[in-house]
């Protein structure tokens, strides 16, 4: 192999390596500012486009779970087809709390997040010893276990009919009442948790922990020979994404006032993966973009035809063929060139 030597001193002379390229700082923040402004104003512009506020809330919830999953999928490189389990456990945890134990929505959310997140934390170590397709198979197996429990345990979960008989209650913030049954209030309530999820993922990605995740995706052998126990870090990524999925699931149960076994099924896990791939797995905002496409397309197409799944499938195939790095990945590539 012949390699042309690069004249390092020449390039070092003209650019004495700033700590971070400063020119990119402002444009890097710009998309985030635009996205947050759009999200904050959804209830005002979405109806003008023929949408409704709950649709926006659903986008946020699917965006949240996909962002959490993407920490594992896009940044650590672990393909999980089982994250619906933690999403669904969050939904059932919250629903059961509201139905049988408490009328406090925040407490119900907290329990949902802990139940789903702990399940991911406990079952994560079973998955991290395997790589690639075997990792995916084990995540499915663990996920389906919860699905079948929810279907069979009729007396508690309502079986195949799903869990009903609970609804989100108003939240009292020291005299200031949040009327969560109002769609717009619930949208902002969800946006608040979405923002927390974003902040967690963002700060992790910009920390040594996140750098380690990315390094695992890139070259496990190198990392092992730097003395790192890879499995522990995949486990941490798995657990964090599980907690975020549980939070999203909890909000989903509150949105629908209903929890369904389908919330735990591997089909939904596949949807989460599709959302990440559609939007762009290597990007921070890609999963949100994928959620916009998926949720809006599903809402629109399912009002036209019962075969809406075929159209979603077609969109997915086209996206993978023409935008293998996802829509956002594609635009970022364009922008940088």
């Amino acid at each position, binding site marked *: *192999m*012949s*390699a*042309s*030597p*690069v004249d*390092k*001193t*020449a*390039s*070092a*002379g003209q*650019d*004495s*390596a700033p*700590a971070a*390229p400063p020119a990119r700082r402002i444009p890097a923040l710009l998309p985030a500012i635009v996205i947050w402004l759009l999200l904050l104003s959804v209830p005002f512009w979405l109806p003008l486009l023929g949408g409704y506020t709950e649709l926006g809330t659903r986008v946020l919830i699917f965006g949240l779970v996909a962002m959490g999953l993407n920490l594992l999928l896009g940044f650590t490189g672990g393909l999980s087809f089982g994250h619906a389990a933690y999403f669904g456990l969050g939904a059932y945890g919250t629903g059961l709390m509201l139905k049988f134990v408490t009328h406090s929505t925040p407490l119900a959310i907290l329990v949902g997040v802990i139940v789903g997140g702990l399940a991911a934390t406990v079952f994560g170590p079973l998955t991290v010893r395997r790589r690639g397709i075997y990792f995916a198979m084990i995540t499915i197996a663990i996920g389906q276990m919860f699905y079948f429990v929810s279907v069979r345990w009729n007396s508690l979960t309502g079986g195949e009919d799903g869990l009903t008989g609970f609804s989100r209650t108003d939240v009292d913030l020291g005299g200031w009442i949040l009327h969560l049954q109002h769609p717009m209030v619930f949208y902002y309530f969800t946006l608040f948790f979405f923002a927390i999820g974003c902040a967690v993922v963002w*700060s*992790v990605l910009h*920390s*040594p*922990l*996140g*750098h*380690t995740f*990315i*390094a695992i995706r*890139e*070259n496990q*052998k*190198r*990392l*092992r*020979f*730097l*003395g*790192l*126990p890879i499995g522990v*870090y995949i486990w*941490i990524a798995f657990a964090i994404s599980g907690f975020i999925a549980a939070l999203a699931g909890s909000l989903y149960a509150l949105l629908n006032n209903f929890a369904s076994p389908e919330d735990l099924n591997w089909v939904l896990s596949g949807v989460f993966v599709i959302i990440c791939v559609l939007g762009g797995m290597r990007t921070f905002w890609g999963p949100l973009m994928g959620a916009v496409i998926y949720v809006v397309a599903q809402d629109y197409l399912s009002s036209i035809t019962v075969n809406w799944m075929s159209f979603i499938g077609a969109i997915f195939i086209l996206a993978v063929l023409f935008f293998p790095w996802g829509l956002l990945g594609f635009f970022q590539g364009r922008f940088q060139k």
Partner: protein
Amino acid sequence: MSLLSLKNVSRRFGSLAALSNISLEIPQGELRAIIGPNGAGKTTLFNLISGLFPPSEGEVLFDGQSIKGVSPARLVHRGMIRTFQITEIFLNLTVYQNLEIAVETAQGLNLRPWLSPARRRSVRTAIDELMETLHLTGLAYRTAGELAHGDQRVVEMAIALSREPKLLLLDEPTAGMGDEETDQMTDLIRHMHGERGITMLFIEHDMNIIFKVADRITVLDNGHLLAEGTPSEISANADVQAAYLGGAK
């Protein structure tokens, strides 16, 4: 005291004896070259020393302690770092990111989801120093995969050095390099050895480099230790000439 010592080490793969009864003593601060024809067992020796698999017989001592049952990761923490025949770096990341992960790992920060500004600065300083020492500063924001092979090799060296190893194992550091790159790498190895006093063990085919930099040379042939000595002793050794140098020249 020897930093690394192998006592009557053998390794078999099924009926194949890859290494037979090898004894080695590498004193602190030595730059030792391992040479031998293809299939002599050089890489097997490296894999064994770095804990990838255990010896079938015999014992390996690093820094006075047996490495039996110690994982490669633990050995790294004890101060043993290796590079590979095929460059192992993070090809899709920039040179800066490559060193960032290396430095953060060396400083034991991997579990931190957040860093204080002071910590951030100390990480950055360490990266900058490393880039300066290895003349990588100008390449900081280039993607590692786009670099010339020789520069990728230097990045790998930088990653290895970030851990401030006691013992550095280099598996064919100049493989696939052009003349100019080979010279750069040779200078770099000399510098690491001279300035930092790092003990090094390297597998190499290029006799020029070996005779330029090595303190001592160990010759393996067919899994056996054929000879050991200074470069001049080795070049005068009749067995070595017959088995190895003679064949080549």
